[in-house]
Structures are given as structure tokens and as C-alpha cells.
């Protein structure tokens, strides 16, 4: 992403990143909202685009559901001016939302129209994050249309990993480089051997990991209130998304793996000794 970011900088065009997963319910929308907010906190101008037409939710995650007038379909069909459709976040002057339409189907727009929409905003933002719908059909293809890179979200579960692998393959055939976020990992379960570790997931999928987010109750409360979790710096998930934002901007921040470690520290833990 760094090289693309530099190239984008030269042309004064923001980088378009699609957030996708294949499987539903793994945290794409939460990731889009949290990463968008975290990038905005770093001073980057960010637009988050809800490409889940018919099932919009990104507005809820940002607490902006009451402010929607126009949406992505209106911009695509030139019913409104691009600037009329975007909504500024309550929390940040750098973060904007382009909401999905709630009443249309996913095939009401095509890839060319989405590309047109993104082109309208790339000059004004450093990052445009596109929240993809679940699945690999038209909605997914639309979400990928203008993207230069992708963040694939998975959880350490077999079905999510299998779908992530499929999506990585599809992205690669479109020439889109994908990086991985492992969401909702529980390091205690990893230690017990009942959950795939960061290393396991990396070995299976074979793509670069840009972030690991621990399972965190704060995500639910943050969603309840429509405030991205990054504003709560006590939240482990919030800290994780802050680190991911730093990596997206090209900073070298190590990804925590919490792998089982040495034999003796494992024995120590099993016996309840903190090594």
C-alpha cells in the first residue's frame, strides 16, 4: 500500500481500499468505520463508502443514520451533486460517509458507475474505504471496481478462512493486492489449542497480515452508541485499529501474534504460572 500511497500522493489522488471478506458477519462494516475513524484521527482525510446497497449499516456504526439525504446510487445516477451526498462525521472533521441506498438492489449500479462515483471523491480525500457487501456476486464486484488494494477481514474460523481464501483469489485475478485482518481472535483459546493462531491463519492463507484484532465487548457497546471503537483508547480492539491505521499509512508497527512461545512458557501457563 505504501508504494501506491506515494504514487497517489504525486497525482493528488486518494487511495481507494476495498474492505471485503466473502463471509458475512466477520466485521467488515465495523472495520471500515473503525479504520476510517483511526485514519481520520491521524489527520488523514477519509471517505468511507457503504457499497452494501439494500442493507446499509455503515451509517449506524458512525451514528449518522439520521442525517442521510442522498446516497451512493443518487451520485451514480447523477441525481445529486457528489458533495451533496457525503455526510461529515460528528466526531471528526476529517471523516465523511457516503451512505448506501436502502431501497435499491445491488445490481441497480454497475462497476463503471461505482468507478465514476469514486473518481468524484478521490481528489479530496487521502483514503477512500469501500465497505463491500458479503458474497462474491455483483455487490462484491461493484465494491472492488475502483479499488487499488484490498483489506480482507476474517475471523479464525474455518468458514471465514475458506471464504477469505476464495476472495483473495478473486481479488488477485483482478490485480488487486490483498492484506488480511484477523478479527475477533481470543488468545486464551489460541493458547488452549482451540482456535487457529495468527501464524496458522497466515500459513493457510499465505498473505500479509495488516492487523490482528482481539475479541472485545467494547465493539458491541461502540456499535450501540454509533461511535467507532477507536475513540475509546482503553479498548483493545480500538488500539488494534489505531495500529492498523498506522500500518496503512506506511508505519512499521509489529503485528502482535501471541503465539504459544517456548515449551517452558507453555508449561508454565498450563500450570497457572505466568512466565
Amino acid at each position, binding site marked *: 500500500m505504501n508504494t501506491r500511497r506515494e504514487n497517489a500522493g504525486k497525482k493528488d489522488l486518494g487511495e481507494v481500499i476495498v474492505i471485503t471478506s466473502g463471509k458475512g458477519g466477520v466485521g467488515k462494516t465495523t472495520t471500515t468505520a473503525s479504520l476510517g475513524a483511526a485514519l481520520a484521527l491521524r489527520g488523514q482525510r477519509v471517505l468511507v463508502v457503504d457499497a452494501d446497497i439494500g442493507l446499509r449499516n455503515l451509517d449506524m456504526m458512525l451514528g449518522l443514520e439520521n442525517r442521510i439525504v442522498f446516497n451512493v446510487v443518487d451520485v451514480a445516477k447523477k441525481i445529486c451533486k457528489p458533495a451533496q451526498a457525503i455526510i461529515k462525521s460528528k466526531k471528526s472533521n476529517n471523516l465523511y460517509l457516503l451512505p448506501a441506498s436502502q431501497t435499491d438492489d445491488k445490481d441497480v449500479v454497475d462497476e463503471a458507475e461505482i468507478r465514476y462515483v469514486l473518481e468524484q471523491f478521490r481528489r479530496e480525500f487521502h483514503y477512500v474505504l469501500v465497505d463491500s457487501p458479503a458474497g462474491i456476486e455483483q455487490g462484491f464486484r461493484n465494491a472492488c471496481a475502483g479499488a487499488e488494494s484490498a483489506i480482507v477481514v476474517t475471523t479464525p*474460523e*474455518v468458514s471465514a478462512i*475458506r471464504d477469505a*481464501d476464495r476472495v483473495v*483469489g478473486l481479488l488477485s485475478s483482478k490485480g488487486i*493486492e490483498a492484506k488480511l485482518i484477523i478479527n475477533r481472535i481470543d488468545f486464551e483459546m489460541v493458547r*488452549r*489449542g482451540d482456535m487457529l493462531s495468527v501464524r496458522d491463519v497466515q500459513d493457510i492463507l*499465505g498473505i500479509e497480515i495488516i492487523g490482528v484484532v482481539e475479541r472485545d465487548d467494547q465493539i458491541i457497546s461502540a456499535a450501540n452508541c454509533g461511535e467507532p471503537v477507536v475513540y475509546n483508547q482503553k479498548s483493545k480492539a480500538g488500539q488494534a485499529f489505531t495500529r492498523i491505521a498506522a500500518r496503512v499509512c506506511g508505519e512499521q508497527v509489529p503485528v502482535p501474534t501471541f503465539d504459544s512461545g517456548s515449551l517452558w512458557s507453555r508449561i508454565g501457563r*498450563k500450570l497457572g504460572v505466568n512466565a
Partner: protein
Amino acid sequence: MFNALKKKLFGESNESKETAKSRLHFVLVQDRTGLTNEEMAGFREEMVKVIEKYFVIDKEGFDIKYHRLADTTTLLINSPVIVRRSTSGSSSKSSRLTETEPENETDTETAAVASNV
């Protein structure tokens, strides 16, 4: 008692993630290659035949991986070699290998064949 202690200490045998890994490994090879079960079995069988022409191998440990890296996809064929088949112009390494007892399963070497796809 020892087994229970071993289980407690090392968490062996009841690690469900190992099951997850092997199941994913199986299903992803099919997903990635787009080969059906029968085609995969046929491919495997033919590969075993080719390798067996030159090596005595442990068929149980024979394993095909379709490994994706950042910019390339690699077919990794892992085959534990018990001995090299003796040929007329055998090298010193192969003669050393042929001296070992073929039934000694622990004394295997692994031949990895990698090819970019």
C-alpha cells in the same frame, strides 16, 4: 495417568485447531485448483507413480499443497523418501541411503517438488 498429565502439560490430542487446519488444508486445495475430488485423486496417483519410478516413498506422508504467496502461486508436493531406487550410476548419497532399512519409517527424507503455477 501419564497420558492425562501429558495432555494437561502439552494440550495434545484434544487441540481442535489441528482438526480445523487439516480440514481447511483439504478443502482449500480443491477450492484453489478448481479440481474435483476425482481429478485431485487422479493427479495425486499419477504424481506418486512418477516419484516411485525413482524413489521408494512413504505414500502415507505424500502431500500436495497449493500454496499462495504474495505474487506467485506454488504447487508444493511433499513426499517422504524412504530410499532412492538404486540405479547403475548411483551417487555416494544414494548408496548411503539404500543401506538403511526401508521399513525404518522414522529414517525418511522429504523430497519437496515445487513448481510455480
